[in-house]
């Protein structure tokens, strides 16, 4: 099997992060380029919202403006994620790449299993949720982390990573956010609903969500986590990951997407 590409960890502005992921996805879709794993962080706090979310109803835009939080729409589905101290990943490949089963949920599970192994290597007893709500269906809460759904990563019964996928023309992109630390207050401030008492919602998030640094010492760095996850992808799938950067075509497409798509929350597919 040909080497996969690893786009190593780097922090980017929020909109650029989404434009990079979509540019890679569109190029893999168009030209059948190598399956790619990208790890990244956020240069400034952001809320990413799912493709189908209603920004006016689900995000507190004044609070975001006041707090210096950029709101950006993801190409993928799912609910809102507050990005600050998280490690975000993207897996991009053709749907018929032999490692991945045909359905969205099965592919999601295969990727999640690698993340579980990556966390195990760090000493975290992560498991996959065997049940849960399907996002967008049962929960009125706009936050991705409010209720775990099927095949999501849990540590001691609390969600630590949220992910979502998009597919088109035979390729898929899965994005996910692994929490290094978690700020339930900030998550509550920027996502709706504000109807119920804030303290109750903060407490509910505190009970349902966890993060790496609740269980691991701060001496474990983001770099350690990246290494562990990369190792788990390589071992779990038996693939060789070669570090690479964006192709000139992907760079140009990223710039185009930044101008045309990711400056505007209202875009539709």
């Amino acid at each position, binding site marked *: 099997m040909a080497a996969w590409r690893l786009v190593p960890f780097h922090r980017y502005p929020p909109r650029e992060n989404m434009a990079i992921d979509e540019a890679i996805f569109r190029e893999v879709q168009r030209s059948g380029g190598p399956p790619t794993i990208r790890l990244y962080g956020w240069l400034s706090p952001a809320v990413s919202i799912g*493709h189908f979310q209603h920004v006016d109803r689900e995000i507190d835009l004044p609070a975001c403006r006041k707090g210096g939080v950029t709101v950006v729409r993801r190409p993928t589905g799912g609910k809102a994620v507050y990005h600050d101290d998280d490690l975000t990943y993207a897996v991009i490949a053709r749907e018929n790449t032999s490692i991945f089963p045909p359905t*969205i949920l099965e592919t999601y599970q295969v990727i999640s299993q690698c993340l579980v192994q990556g966390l195990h290597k760090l000493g975290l007893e992560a498991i996959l949720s065997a049940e849960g709500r399907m996002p*967008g269906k049962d929960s009125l809460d706009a936050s991705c982390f409010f209720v775990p759904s*099927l095949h999501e990563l849990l540590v001691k019964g609390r969600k630590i990573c949220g992910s979502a996928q998009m*597919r*088109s023309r035979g390729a898929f992109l*899965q994005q996910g956010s692994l929490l290094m630390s978690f700020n339930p207050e900030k998550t509550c401030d920027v996502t709706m609903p504000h109807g119920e008492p804030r303290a109750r919602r903060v407490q509910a998030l505190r009970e349902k969500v966890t993060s790496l640094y609740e269980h691991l010492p701060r001496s474990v760095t983001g770099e350690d986590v990246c290494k562990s996850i990369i190792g788990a992808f390589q071992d779990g799938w038996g693939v060789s990951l070669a570090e690479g950067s964006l192709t000139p075509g992907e760079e140009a497409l990223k710039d185009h997407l930044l101008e045309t798509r990711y400056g505007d929350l209202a875009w539709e597919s």
Partner: protein
Amino acid sequence: MKVFPDDLLYSREHVWVRVEGDLATIGITDLAQEKLGEVHSVELPEIDTEVERDEPFGAIEAAKGMVELISPLTGNVINVNEDLIDDIGIVNSDPHDTGWMIVVEINDLDELDDLLDSRGYHDFILQEVEGE
């Protein structure tokens, strides 16, 4: 083995087309809905908008993901299935019939030549699975 009705045409993006004169009813195939899983919502164009062949005309949200809907034809949307608002589940339960999505007035009937019949679609699926 899935059954793909003989009276439909199929795109390589897993969309079916039922042609009646210069009108095309469009939906997703049974295989597409199976790969999606439980569908939650669908985003479709409004009536009297243009859709373009090989370009997205909407999107479907399912458990843990979304899928772009790629138009098999160019034309003007003259009808949208409003039943999907009340019961999105029919996309899963009856994708080739009541789960239809839009009706398009076809601009160029020659575009139909690029679509597959049920046998061709069946063979395409097998090739796709063996693609890697």
